[in-house]
């Protein structure tokens, strides 16, 4: 099965992580919320699948391109 890595689209701070490892997730479901430029932006899953790995926790600051989660 194809693996899809969610990356941070820009520098920011993780506010909340909604998804849990092992959980089933549908395309468009929110994985976590990233705050950048005073805006809270939901990061969503690009595919239907299972959350294989989450690489961030709430409060983390992430750079653009940082890996957030792996969905397969």
């Amino acid at each position, binding site marked *: 099965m194809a693996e899809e890595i969610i*990356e941070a*689209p*820009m520098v920011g701070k993780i506010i909340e992580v909604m998804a849990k490892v092992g959980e089933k997730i549908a395309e*468009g479901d929110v994985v976590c919320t990233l705050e*950048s*430029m005073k*805006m809270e*932006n*939901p*990061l*969503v899953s*690009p595919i239907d699948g299972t959350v294989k790995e989450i690489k961030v926790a709430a409060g983390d600051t992430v750079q*653009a*391109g940082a890996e957030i989660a792996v969905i397969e």
Partner: protein
Amino acid sequence: MFGLETGFGEFFTNYQYPVMIIIGLTLIYLGIAKKMEPLLLVPIGLGVILVNLPWPGEGLMAYEVLNSSTGLLETIPYQDYVQPPYNMAGGEPVGLMSRIFHYGLSWEIMPPLIFLGLGALTDFGPVIANPKTLLLGAGAQFGVYFAMIVAFGLGAAGLGWFDFQMGEAASIGIIGGADGPTTIFVTNRLAPTILGATAVAAYSYMALVPIIQPPIIKLFTSKKQRQIYMKPQLRAVSNREKIIFPLMATIIIILLVPASAPLVGSFMLGNLLLVSGVTDRLSITAGGGFMNVLTILLGVAVGAQMSGFIFLQQKTLGIFALGLVAFMAATAFGVILAQIMNLFSKTKINPMIGAAGVSAVPMASRVVQRMGQKENPRNFLLMHAMGPNIAGVIGTAVAAGVFISMIG
């Protein structure tokens, strides 16, 4: 009576005073309760109140000026300063507000210094990574010229509400750029008597970006176009590029439009302080405390321009109406230019990012980001919109230079 006279009598015999106090209080209310541009509307609001209390409130905005019919020097409030028999040229400011206004604004010091601070807070990365977006920032400026032509046309047609001279028309057009300091800079040079109106119009419409822009964006795009996906990652921009960009931009833009030098030069200097890596102390100050001081002074000085005797005219309503036209036109032209670029390019851009070409940073980018995610949850347009957004700031400063050299 012992030389002591309260202001009540004067206050209630001229409707202009109480009406302006209500306007001042409304601006403060919008700032505090509705969080609309509070950093500006609160000081502007209090400035309005101060200058619309009969002497000595008006005395804060007083000038010592020659009365040409008596040949004597007189101290008079601002609203009389611009009327005969007083000669506007050569008056000396004598009140606190008029001094701040005269030496800060008429001398064109504060708007460029605010640009210095803005430059110190601006990341040119998105523009450097995708220079195409510079064009989008320029596209929105068509709206500025469009509104200027409409304003001047209506004035020439002799409609009472829109009786605008060329300089006034240009100052109204520049509202479409959604850039406060630039609007103030241009109006001060070309049409100082409408400065209060254009400044408040510019800041009001900036606060209303999230309400004004979405319907216009929708009007000029299809649902499918709004869903166009753009890869989230812009290429990495090196430090060297970030240093070269403000230097090259300074030289090229000022050679192209010399009159834009005060705004563009300050903006790029602020940015250079940010990216040089060795002047952090200066860039932190320029974009922090220094800019806050200027914001306070600029706010009260602009508010103090709004004497009821000058502000409460049909013309002011005309300025607000045309300012809105300017703003909507700038949004529309940005989107249309993005559509045109898509006709000639293989990798399609999401045309909504053109709307960020008005300079309201980062509000316009946020609007695009919100709308983009709503149409296509995977889309993340914020950084893509920042390109035209920042280019819009430069574009409006350039448009200001064009106006000043053509009309000033």
